[in-house]
């Protein structure tokens, strides 16, 4: 993730917040063909995302299923508590976009968690209990209230937001402006 490179210059505290690009997605997900029917996308609209993924060693494909990501977000909170947030976040992204796994399935999430050194059985139980459901709901509500409509959105020190997969230099420049107080909300 390009934004991680900010650690070279700043003492960065990362916080992952959930967002649903497709709220109301059925729990089992939806075939991409069906989900995309009637939608028109500009040519190359995914190019920047693909390049960002490639920078992180992830070969972005076009998975046939668009999953419901609610459980993946809950699992992300589990990983956060387990001290493996960045590793898990990257691994889930790779599992979906590169390995074309259905990350709406608890089995897939538990396997990825195990590969990140997390306790997969504890995750399974946490997802079954809905232990992180409220936390994710709060994050989704925050995003709606903040007017966020696209991802990734990176909010710097709670004051300034950058939307989209930008170059590292953009994140770095914004970081400098924010810490020097040269931008206002």
């Amino acid at each position: 993730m390009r934004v991680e490179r900010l650690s070279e210059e700043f003492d960065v505290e990362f916080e992952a917040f959930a967002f649903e690009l497709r709220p109301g997605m059925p729990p089992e997900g939806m075939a991409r063909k069906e989900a995309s029917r009637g939608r028109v996308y500009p040519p190359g609209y995914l190019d920047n995302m693909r390049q960002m993924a490639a920078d992180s060693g992830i070969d972005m494909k076009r998975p046939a299923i668009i999953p419901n990501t609610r459980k993946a977000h809950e699992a992300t909170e589990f990983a956060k508590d387990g001290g493996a947030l960045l590793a898990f976040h990257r691994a889930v992204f790779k599992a979906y976009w590169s390995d074309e796994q259905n990350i709406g399935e608890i089995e897939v999430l538990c396997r990825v968690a195990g590969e990140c050194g997390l306790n997969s059985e504890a995750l399974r139980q946490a997802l079954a209990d809905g232990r992180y459901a409220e936390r994710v709901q709060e994050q989704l509500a925050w995003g709606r209230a903040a007017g966020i409509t696209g991802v990734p959105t990176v909010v710097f020190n709670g004051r300034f937001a950058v939307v989209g997969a930008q170059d590292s230099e953009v994140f770095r420049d914004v970081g400098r402006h924010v810490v020097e107080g040269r931008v206002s909300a």
Partner: protein
Amino acid sequence: MESWSVGFDGDEDVERHAGMIEVRPKAGKPRLHLRVVSDYI
């Protein structure tokens, strides 16, 4: 210059009292909190 530092090697407190060196606070990296709002799809 008179110094207390005889017998001490690299003790910044002693050397500072002796006026031998100017010790400036180490500049840390500026702190940045990043809230990354994202979905996996």
